[in-house]
């Protein structure tokens, strides 16, 4: 009889204690997404990833780049990633049906072009960090492509890193011989970056080089 009472009391206390705790009795939702390979997957149990931003899409044209001109305005310059519109006149060694008979050079340009396009979209959406990541990815694929360096320099300038913008543009210039339009754009960017760093004499010099290149 007494043990019963004690049991009852104990039960009551347990319930009370249970309710008295800090968190209430709602099942806890695991806060914070777990960290894992698991989590990197979009497989079972994962919500399907929202339509990826960087999934590259083949675009049909070149990339239109707004290039500041000497007068401080800007003009659209159409240029092609991976130097010179495809030169190769020899037929591709193998032409798989799915590739639509693209020349090898164009195929090589595919990923770089796609990443430049993604970067453009991310940049216009204000996501400079992602734009930068896309461009660095493009640079790993085509490290000597001045167009990629030019775009990365532009993004750095927008990110407020004028010193790196200048350096990246200079590196672009070291790979841009024989491409006067691109050289002019790169010099223009160097000028802007120098201006931003308070070096107006250097900026003026760079603008001169930009004119000469054109």
């Amino acid at each position, binding site marked *: 009889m007494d043990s019963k009472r004690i049991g009852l009391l104990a039960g009551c206390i347990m319930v009370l204690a249970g309710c008295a705790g800090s968190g209430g009795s709602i099942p806890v939702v695991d806060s914070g997404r*777990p960290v894992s390979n698991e989590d990197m997957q979009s497989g079972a149990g994962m919500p399907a990833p929202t339509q990826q931003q960087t999934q590259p899409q083949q675009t049909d044209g070149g990339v239109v780049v707004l290039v500041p001109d000497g007068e401080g305005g800007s003009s659209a310059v159409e240029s092609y990633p991976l130097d010179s519109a495809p030169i190769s006149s020899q037929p591709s060694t193998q032409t798989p049906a*799915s590739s639509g008979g693209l020349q090898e050079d164009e195929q090589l340009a595919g990923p770089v072009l796609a990443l430049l396009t993604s970067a453009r979209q991310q940049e216009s959406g204000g996501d400079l960090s992602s734009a930068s990541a896309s461009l660095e*990815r493009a640079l790993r694929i085509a490290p*000597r492509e001045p167009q990629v360096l030019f775009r990365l320099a532009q993004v750095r300038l927008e990110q407020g890193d004028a010193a790196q913008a200048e350096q990246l543009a200079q590196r672009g210039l070291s790979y841009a011989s024989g491409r006067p339009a691109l050289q002019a754009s790169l010099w223009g960017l160097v000028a802007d970056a120098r201006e931003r760093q308070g070096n107006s004499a250097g900026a003026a010099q760079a603008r001169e080089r930009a004119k000469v290149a054109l």
Partner: protein
Amino acid sequence: MGRKRSKRAVRKVGFWKRWSGLLWKLAIVGLVLFAGLAVYLDAVVQEKFSGKRWAVPAKVFARPLELYAGQKLSRDDFVTELSALGYRSVSAVKQPGQMSVAGSRVDVYTRGFQSFEGSEPAQRISVRFSGQQVTGLSGNGEVVMARIEPLMIGGIYPAHNEDRILIRLDQAPPYLVEALVAVEDREFFQHFGVSPKGIARAAYVNVSAGGVVQGGSTLTQQLVKNFYLNSDRSLIRKGTEAIMAVLLELHYSKEAILEAYLNEVFLGQDGRRAVHGFGLASQYYFAQPLHELELHQVALLVGMVKGPSLFNPRRQPERAKKRRDLVIQMLEEQGVITEEQAGLNIAKPLDVTVRGTMADTSYPAFMDLIKRQLRADYQDEDLTSEGLRIFTSFDPLLQLKAEQAVETAFKRLGDRAGKEMEAAMVVTGAQTGEVLALVGGRNPRFSGFNRALDASRQIGSLIKPAVFLTALEQPQRYSLITPVDDSPITLPAEQGKTWSPQNYSRVSHGLVPLHEALSRSYNQATVRLGVDVGVDKVLQTVERMGVQHNWPAYPAMLLGSGAMTPLQVTDMYQTLASGGFNTPLRAIRNVLTAEGEQLSRYPFKVQQRFDSATIFLMQEGMSRVMAEGTGRSAYNQIPSDIRLAGKTGTTNDLRDSWFAGFSDDLLAVAWLGRDDNGQTRLTGATGALQIWSAFMAEAHPNSLSEVPPGDIGYAWVNRLTGEGSDPSCPDTVQMPFRAGYEPLPGPGCRPLIDTAPVKEGAGRVMDVIRGWLQ
């Protein structure tokens, strides 16, 4: 009797009256104490369960493999990486994590992942290969590019720590929950934390089996035991455990408890790292994400809960299989699976990954580099508990090739290598400055002295490019063909001594073109050149190339008596490889928090230190080292049409054997030597170059670009004199110069009119005249 009875009753009542008061008091005191304990335990239960439940060590990932037409990647390497990631070979791919290899085509259903570079969808793609290249991708229509999820290469743990990969309940594969409940706690979904029925059954089973076969603990109790309590086996602890189990069940749903259990349970010991939770166990034993596991794999893990070391599938495969099959049979008995399913799964092998394969190996040298870089930026506690995800530039395929190159070279050296000989190697992206592979010693699995980072050794002739670069920066005085004097020289040295450097061959060569002095690594010519441009200038050049040092400006520095680590040498040569731009070496690309937020970026940075035209000339000179100089044996292993640049390094008495060199895309530095700085009897060419060449032969480097930057002009010069010449002359070669400093063309050697017949005629006339005279 009645009286007696009543008396007894009275007495009883009296007794009760006397004692019940006390008992009541005692009971109340006990209850209050109990209540206090319960409230306290409840607070403990809730606090730990609702907060951050586990300290999760940071995980380090390799680079994700990029796929696109034109990508340099062989089919075999691709399959190697997919296998390491736990992709299973099937005849037709139907779901993520499967691949199918047929001829030069690999079909793969990628898993998809999220990283700082955006999310990659899971998709079915066909990758076509030709030799060392990807020639095309196709999937749902044309696929421009795709990525494979990065391999996890390690974590950052304190000395003794639990490691885990957190999973959610909905990520559990089919049969995991069923099997766990069937084996460990059949009443899990019915009981309230403790299971009297379970205890009774366990007792019965144990008694009839004559030993402990089954535990009576519920899953909840097991969780409480592991999660909140230490592992002593006292009754008090059992009691506390039971109370806490009931409290836990009061507050939280069965699902929440089960999920916590799946993440908490101990499933193995990996050195000093404890493997906890099914998420990590799945990676650790199968290299696969948990949700992909099949029934036989699930059964193995569930069977291991009882005794992870007892049933370790790698050490005790037979015992583990028996246990696994028992679990499968239990599922069949309970009607969860059919008899046929059980039979099929019992017939399957354990399928655990093999130690030492890419799926299950350690990279202590690279991890050491990562940790050092992270410790500069983060607190130890953040690294070991916050579940950070660290994305690196590590390339497991190149790492494998680097390790194999070291192994191959040691095999070839045979006895000459000896037991004492050690090695180190650094591989970076020549243009990006990203560290791709790192070997810290002859045994790449040994985590101890990391020679790539810490062995600071004399660099010998590796310094020479700095001497020649300093000279070439003065185009008015030096070009690649400027004659330099390779003749004996004596210089004052420290403390009134003199220094008379010798050539390696002990032969002096007199006047030689500058490029030849570099490619043949002539010491006397180099010292004369260095003294000419100034030792201090040369040492400044070394700093501009990226290595800070405190070397005194002694002439002996011109032959590399200063010391560097392999990583520092890499930094120095990186500037040569990337056209004069110094790029700080990077191994980390990005750090994400557990929530996927970007914590820090390590962006690509460059700084121009040298004119790209001057560097182009240096690259030309260093490519001659490979084509005709001390590095030419590399072409015994590498196709001769691949243009490479490099430099051998040998130190006094053959103590260190160095080679540093690059292609368009890869830079590699190799070192051979002894930790006690003893003699190796190897030169740079006979030692380190052999490692380097073996690596490059397998890495299939891209030929170094011959496209000149602006400010380069070509001219025809006499190979021997260095004077301007004409293509019509013998011994004439085309040479790059700094624009504006080309020599004037020499006179042609072929007259405008072909004079041979005239000469012939004249000869005949002379014969006639001679005849007359006789």
